[in-house]
């Protein structure tokens, strides 16, 4: 899974609620849910040091 440009985003209350990123050349919003396979893969790549998630604006 090719993941690029990962960045947290906040809901309208200012709380982090997901990660914007590009997966296999498609822009997506990934929820912070351990049952979500994309979130699991993001966490794996972060732990492996191959992906960094930017802070939300």
């Amino acid at each position, binding site marked *: *899974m*090719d993941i690029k440009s990962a960045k947290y*985003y906040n*809901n*309208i209350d200012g709380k982090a*609620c*997901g990660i*914007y990123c590009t*997966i*296999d050349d*498609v*822009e*997506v*919003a*990934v*929820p912070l*849910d351990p*049952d*979500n*396979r*994309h*979130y699991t893969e993001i966490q794996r790549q972060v732990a492996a040091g191959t992906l960094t998630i930017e802070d939300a604006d």
Partner: protein
Amino acid sequence: MALTKLRPAGQGFVNGNRNLIINGAMQVAQRGDTTGISNANSGYYGPDRYKFNEDGTMSAVVSIAKETLTSGNAFNDGHLYAYKLSVTTADTAVAADIYTRITHRFEKDNLASLSKGTSSAKAVTLSFWVKATVTGTNVVEFFDQVNSRQVGATYAISSSNTWEYKTVTFPADTSGALGNGNGLAAEINFVLQAGSNYTSGTLDTSWASETTANRAAGHNSNHFSSTSNTFHFTGVQLEIGDVATDFEHEDYGTTLAKCQRYYEQLLNHNGSFNVIATLRSGTDYRTQWLFKTEKRGTPTMGGSFSATITTTYISTQLASYYKSNGDFYGSATLTADAEL
């Protein structure tokens, strides 16, 4: 591996929902056909609920499509559609670390009837139609993702480009309970390519702890060996017991709803808006996409209305969006992906 017994036609069980596979008849293909699938592109393409899954550095490039059948043994058995994989760039030398397969994944609650990990554990039988250019021995694997346990079976493709019906029975497993909930429990893997890292051992025909070298031992078919190769399958059924019964045909709407638990899309209809935004105050627009089917888990949202529109909340039932300044332009195809 126990011999599989065939029940005479017309004497199959009459109760419904015995097929644990979703979209076994390949009716539903929400994502459409995909070309140019290459290394590191494991994902869902073509008919719903089947994942093209590859480990290692795959040098082949393939296309995946929903095929409409008009003749052949599978068609004559009542199957109108199939999963079709075509090779567009060949791989003649299978590297040791290659393990390419088509995977069907099950969530935990949906495998409760197996009683896996108990003294009452049940055997299951997998049946399917297959047609491939390459003849030889193939492995199909049942892999327990919770406990990293495996069991495999072999089947032969005897005649090139000819539909053949296959059945294999996987024995009961009294070890390794799958638990409950919506998480990943287990998967069926139809192996397409397996390097020596996966074939150098002995196939586990009884359940065993994961051993990579045993996973596809005996598989000697490289379905990506030529650009003229194709691999098709349909009529996939996994059921409790050691008997393959007649395929359980299901109406399209029921199968679609089952598939939409894992993936749903809201199409862009010729540029028309696919959602209606509400002006909340000033220039602050809000809108929601209410899913037709509640998702297995919180989905990944794909597609966007425009760069300045924000996804604010995602649940198993809906996704909400807002734009703080200006008109809400909504003409993209939106996707919600809660696949395993």
